[in-house]
């Protein structure tokens, strides 16, 4: 396989980025949290994500500018989102930017559904640390797997960070493939959080969330 070429995502990548988000959300399972929490179909979610990405809002995992794309022979092969938490025009947490985007593009029915479902997942939600570099939505197209593209794309994000900078990634405990990729990229598990409410498994791939960190 030829060496990957890395570049920032553009509007032309929106379909691929939406595909990446949907597949990464599943964490190797059949459960798609955004769909189950907001009671929306995968197709509808795809449309919403594309509309969100078109806005080119900065500062979260739904920001086009957060994504680096790896190309092999001119074709999209992998992508990873990365951003500095809280570094945006209004110094908003990424969770709030993401909430604003979803709130704007989803009908009231879906927002209300999420509110009704939120009690089950409340104790599995984990915050991101302000000022750290966040990695999210690591995705490699099936036909390009087995070439360490995930690791290479993550490292591409980390290249520009100063020595001493801290990077974080959150992943579900049952996503062994992702955990191995993060470990290869130099991340180590620094905390483990297991939710107590088994109802959450209706909406999430696992009850356990790992925080993995790396100091550049």
């Amino acid at each position, binding site marked *: 396989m030829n060496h990957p070429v890395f570049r920032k995502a553009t509007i032309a990548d929106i379909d691929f980025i939406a595909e990446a988000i949907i597949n990464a959300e599943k964490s190797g399972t059949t459960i798609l949290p955004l769909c189950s929490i907001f009671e929306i179909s995968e197709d509808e979610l795809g449309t919403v994500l594309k509309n969100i990405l078109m806005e080119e809002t900065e500062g979260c995992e739904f920001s086009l500018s957060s994504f680096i794309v790896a190309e092999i022979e001119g074709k999209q092969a992998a992508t990873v989102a990365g951003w500095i938490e809280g570094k945006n025009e209004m*110094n908003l947490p990424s969770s709030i930017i993401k909430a604003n985007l979803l709130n704007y593009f989803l009908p009231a029915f879906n927002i209300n559904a999420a509110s009704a479902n939120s009690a089950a997942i409340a104790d599995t939600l984990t915050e991101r640390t302000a000022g750290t570099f966040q990695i999210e939505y690591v995705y490699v197209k099936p036909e390009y797997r087995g070439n360490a593209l995930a690791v290479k794309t993550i490292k591409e994000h980390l290249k520009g960070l100063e020595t001493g900078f801290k990077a974080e990634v959150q992943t579900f405990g049952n996503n062994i493939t992702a955990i191995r990729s993060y470990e290869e990229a130099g991340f180590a598990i620094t905390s483990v959080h297991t939710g107590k409410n088994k109802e959450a498994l209706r909406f999430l791939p696992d009850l356990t969330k790992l925080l993995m960190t790396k100091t550049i």
Partner: protein
Amino acid sequence: MKDKYIREKLTAIFRQTLNQPELILKENLSSADISNWDSINHMQLIAKTEQEFRIKFSLKEIMRFRTVGDLVKLIDEKISDDQVSSLSS
């Protein structure tokens, strides 16, 4: 009168949504100050605010909402004194 109306209604919305019956809304109150002001409750705050004041925020406007003071300002920009009279009657 408009400011008082906005703050009274917002206090009720925040107290109910965040399940904090004694919450006092200060100007610089933000999601960093309240543990269950999470992303889903944030969406409810916006949705209930829009419903209560019969307004719709643009995406650009809602991205200016970091604190309670920001939200009060956003609502103030979108409703007139006449609308307050109409909403409160």
